[in-house]
C-alpha cells in the first residue's frame, strides 16, 4: 500500500519539476515584454495595415549583428527593449521605452520626426553601452554578473565593487569612454571627460611612468594602452584613489586628486582599449612614425638652455605633480625650493638622465627629455638659491625636515612612502641615543649619500644645524642622552681585501644575512617587509662607500639599536668574520679591480650553498679553480 502512495507522490513531484523546468525554459520574461508591446502598439495603431502587421508578429529573439566595429557583436537588447526605436513609447516605463533622441548624439529632426545619427541596426547597443549583448536576462545582459568584464557603463555597478565608490561610478558621462572609440579627435565636443583625463594624464605627470600608445613612453609603470579593455571602471577609480588598494606592493604614489579629476582619469583610462574603431594597425604605426619624427625635429630645434625656459618647462612637464617648488606641492617627492643650494649642476644632470644613478632606490622615472631641456631645468633650479627665511629651530624643522621626517618626527612625513631608504624615525630614542652627536651633525651637513637626505651645508649655517639637532633631541627623542658606551672596534678593516676574504665573507653573508638583506644584498630579503626601518640596501654604493669601516664594524658586531639589526657578536661572529663580511660588502660596491686581478665579483644568486657544504662558493664561474 505504502509503495503506491509513494509512487503517486513521487510521480507528482516529477511532474512538478518537469513543469517548472518547462516553464523556466520556454516562458521567458522577454516574451511577456514583447506581448505587452504588441498589445500597446495595437491600441496606438492608426491604420488597419499596421494592425495586421502587428498581428502577424509573435514574440521572438530580436538581434542585431554588427560586424563593422572590431569583433562582431550580437546584440539582443531589442528583444526586451523592443520599443527602443518606436517614437510613441517615450513616456513608457523600461523596458518598453523609446531610446531618447538627443541632438548631442547627432540625431536630427526632419519634418517633425526624429532621425537617429547612430542607427541601432548599424551600431547595435553594446558599442556605446557595454553589457552582454547576447544576454536575454537583465542580470546577465546588463552585466550585473560580477564575472562579466563590461557592465553597462554608468548604469550598472557590480556587487563586488567597493560600496563606498559605487555611487560615484554611475552616470551616463562614463559612456564617453566608448564614444572615444570612434571619435578620437583631441577636441571632440562630445567627450569632455576624455579630454580632461588626457590633460590630467600629462598634468599629473602620469606620462612619466606609464606608456600609452601614441601619447607617452614611460617605462616604470605598466603600459596603459589597453587598460580600458583589461579593467572595469571600479578598478581604475580605486587604483587611482589608492594605488595600494589592489596592489599592496605598488609604489605608485597617491596623487592629490579631486573626485571630478579621478572621474575624468577613469573615463580617459577606460577609453584606452588598444586599437580603437577609428584606427587600423597600419594607421597607428604611421602615426607612431610621425610622432618619432616630430620628436626628433623638436630635439634639434630646442632653444638654448636658459633658466627662463627651465621654469616654463617645469610647469609644462608637471614636475610639481610630485615635487614641491615654492607654493606648488605634489606631496610625493622632495622639496626643490632650495635646490640651488643643495645640488650642483652635474648632480642634477646625472639625476635627470637616470635618477637611480644618484639615489639607487629612487622611484623617479626616467624622463626622456632633450639634453637642452634638462640643462634649462637645472639652470632654473640653480637660481633657487635664496636661503630659507626660517629663524627658530622649530620653524626650520617644520619648513625643511617635517616634509619627510613628519610633523611628529616619526619618519612619516607626507613623502615617506616614496623615499627609499625611508626617512629616519627621530622619536626612536634607542637609536638616537646610541649614535654620537657628531654623526647627526655630519648627516645634516653633508646629507646621506645615496638617499634623499640632502646636504644642508649651504642652506643652514653651522649654528642653525646645531639648534635643529638640539630641537630634535628635545622635542622628539625626549629621553636624556647618557654616556655612549665605548666599543672596541678597529678604525680600519684589519682583514686584507682579497679574494679569499671575500669568499669567506660571502659564505657568512649567505648563512646569516640574507633573511633580511636578501640574497642579492639589496635589502629585500624575505623578512624585509615586516621590518621597520627596512634593512639597508648593501648595493647602494653611494651610501656604502661613504660609510667608514669603523661604522660597519660597529653595526655588524654590536647591532644597530632601534632597528632589527642584532648584535652579531652575541651570535658568535668574530671581528675577523666581520672583516670578511665588510670586504664582501665593499667588493659589491667596488669600482676598481680586485687585488687578485679579478673583476669585482657579483653575488651569484644561484649559489647553491647548502648549510652542510663547507665548500667556498664559486664567485667566478669562468675560473678554472671552480669546480
Amino acid at each position, binding site marked *: 500500500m505504502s509503495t503506491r502512495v509513494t*509512487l503517486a507522490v513521487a*510521480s507528482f513531484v516529477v*511532474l512538478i519539476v*518537469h513543469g517548472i523546468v518547462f516553464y523556466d525554459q520556454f516562458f521567458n520574461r522577454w516574451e511577456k515584454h514583447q506581448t505587452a508591446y504588441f498589445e500597446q502598439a495595437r491600441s496606438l495603431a492608426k491604420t488597419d*495595415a499596421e494592425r495586421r502587421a502587428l498581428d502577424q508578429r509573435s514574440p521572438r529573439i530580436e538581434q542585431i*549583428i554588427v560586424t563593422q566595429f572590431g569583433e562582431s557583436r550580437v546584440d539582443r537588447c531589442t528583444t526586451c527593449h523592443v520599443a527602443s526605436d518606436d517614437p510613441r513609447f517615450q513616456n513608457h516605463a523600461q523596458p518598453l521605452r523609446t531610446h531618447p533622441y538627443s541632438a548631442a548624439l547627432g540625431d536630427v529632426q526632419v519634418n517633425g520626426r526624429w532621425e537617429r545619427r547612430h542607427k541601432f*541596426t548599424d551600431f547595435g547597443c553594446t558599442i556605446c553601452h557595454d553589457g552582454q549583448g547576447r544576454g536575454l536576462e537583465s542580470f546577465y545582459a546588463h552585466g550585473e554578473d560580477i564575472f562579466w568584464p563590461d557592465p553597462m557603463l554608468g548604469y550598472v555597478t557590480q556587487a563586488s565593487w567597493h560600496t563606498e565608490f559605487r555611487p560615484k561610478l554611475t552616470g551616463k558621462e562614463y559612456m564617453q569612454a566608448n564614444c572615444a572609440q570612434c571619435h578620437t579627435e583631441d577636441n571632440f565636443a562630445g567627450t569632455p571627460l576624455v579630454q580632461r583625463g588626457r590633460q590630467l594624464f600629462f598634468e599629473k605627470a602620469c606620462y612619466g611612468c606609464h606608456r600609452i600608445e601614441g601619447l607617452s613612453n614611460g617605462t616604470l609603470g605598466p603600459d596603459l594602452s589597453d587598460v580600458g579593455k583589461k579593467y572595469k571602471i571600479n578598478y581604475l577609480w580605486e587604483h587611482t584613489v589608492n594605488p595600494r588598494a589592489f596592489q599592496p606592493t605598488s609604489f605608485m604614489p597617491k596623487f592629490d586628486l579631486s573626485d571630478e579629476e579621478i572621474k575624468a582619469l577613469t573615463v580617459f583610462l577606460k577609453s584606452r582599449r588598444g586599437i580603437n574603431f577609428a584606427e587600423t594597425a597600419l594607421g597607428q604605426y604611421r602615426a607612431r612614425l610621425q610622432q618619432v619624427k616630430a620628436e626628433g625635429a623638436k630635439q634639434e630645434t630646442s632653444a638654448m638652455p636658459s633658466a627662463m625656459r627651465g621654469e616654463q618647462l617645469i610647469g609644462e612637464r608637471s614636475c610639481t605633480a610630485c615635487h614641491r617648488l615654492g607654493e606648488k606641492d605634489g606631496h610625493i617627492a622632495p622639496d626643490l625650493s632650495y635646490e640651488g643650494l643643495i645640488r650642483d649642476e652635474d648632480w642634477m644632470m646625472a639625476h635627470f638622465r637616470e635618477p637611480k644613478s644618484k639615489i639607487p632606490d629612487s622611484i623617479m622615472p626616467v624622463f626622456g627629455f632633450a639634453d637642452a631641456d634638462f640643462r634649462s631645468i637645472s639652470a632654473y633650479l640653480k637660481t633657487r638659491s635664496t636661503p630659507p627665511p626660517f629663524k627658530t629651530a622649530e620653524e626650520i624643522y617644520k619648513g625643511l625636515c617635517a616634509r619627510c621626517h613628519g610633523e611628529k618626527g616619526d619618519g612619516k612625513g607626507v613623502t615617506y612612502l616614496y623615499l627609499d631608504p625611508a626617512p629616519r624615525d627621530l622619536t626612536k630614542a634607542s637609536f638616537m641615543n646610541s649614535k654620537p652627536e657628531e654623526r647627526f651633525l655630519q648627516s645634516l651637513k653633508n646629507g646621506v649619500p645615496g638617499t634623499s637626505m640632502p646636504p644642508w651645508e649651504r642652506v643652514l649655517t653651522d649654528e642653525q644645524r646645531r639648534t635643529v639637532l638640539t630641537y630634535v633631541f628635545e622635542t622628539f627623542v625626549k629621553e636624556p642622552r647618557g654616556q655612549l658606551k665605548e666599543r672596541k672596534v678597529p678604525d680600519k678593516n684589519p682583514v686584507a681585501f682579497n679574494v679569499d676574504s671575500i669568499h669567506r665573507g660571502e659564505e657568512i653573508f649567505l648563512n646569516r644575512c640574507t633573511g633580511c638583506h636578501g640574497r642579492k644584498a639589496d635589502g629585500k630579503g624575505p623578512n624585509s617587509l615586516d621590518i621597520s626601518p627596512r634593512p639597508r640596501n648593501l648595493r647602494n654604493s653611494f651610501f656604502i662607500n661613504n660609510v667608514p669601516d669603523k661604522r660597519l664594524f660597529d653595526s655588524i658586531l654590536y647591532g644597530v639599536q632601534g632597528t632589527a639589526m642584532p648584535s652579531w657578536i652575541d651570535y658568535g661572529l668574530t671581528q675577523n668574520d666581520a672583516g670578511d663580511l665588510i670586504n664582501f660588502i665593499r667588493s659589491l660596491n667596488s669600482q676598481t679591480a680586485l687585488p687578485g686581478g679579478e673583476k669585482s665579483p657579483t653575488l651569484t644568486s644561484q649559489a647553491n650553498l647548502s648549510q652542510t657544504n663547507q665548500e667556498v662558493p664559486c664567485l667566478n664561474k669562468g675560473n678554472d679553480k671552480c669546480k
Partner: protein
Amino acid sequence: MKTPAKPEIEEGGDAMTRRRLLSWLSGFGLLGSLIITVLSNLIFIKPRATYGQPNRFSIGKPEDFPSGARLSLDARRVCIVRDGDKIAAISTTCTHLGCIVSVSETGFACPCHGSRYDQDGNVTGGPAPRALPWYQVSLAPNGDIEVDKDTEIEAGNYLRV
C-alpha cells in the same frame, strides 16, 4: 499504511477504490512528465536564434526608393520593388538551387542554371520549380520600412506608402 482492517471492495465494480485512485494519479503524473519531456525536446530541436543576419530588418525610408526602382540588396537577398506609392520585397534566392538571381529587364534571371522569372517572380523558364516568394513589408513606427523574411505573402500584395 496502518489503516484499520476495513473491507476495500465496494459494491459497484467500477467504483473508485483507493488503489485505483492511486494508480490513476501515478499514471497521470508520469504521463504528464512524459508529455512535457517530449514536448520540450521537440521545441528544443528548433533553435530560437541563429547567428545569421536577422530576418526582420529595416531598409530605410520610403523616400530612398524612387518610383519604378527595382533595387536588389544582395546582402539581404531581397529585391525592393517600388511602383508609384506601392512597395514590395521579392526574394532573390533562386528556388532551384539557391543562387542569387540578378535583376534583368524582363524580371529576374539566375546566372547558375538559366532560370528565368518575370517582374512578379513567376517562373518563365529554366529549371526553377516555384515562383520567387514575396515577403511581408511594413512601415515601422519610426518611419522606416521593415522587411520580414520570416513571413511570406501572396504575390501582388503591395504596401501603400
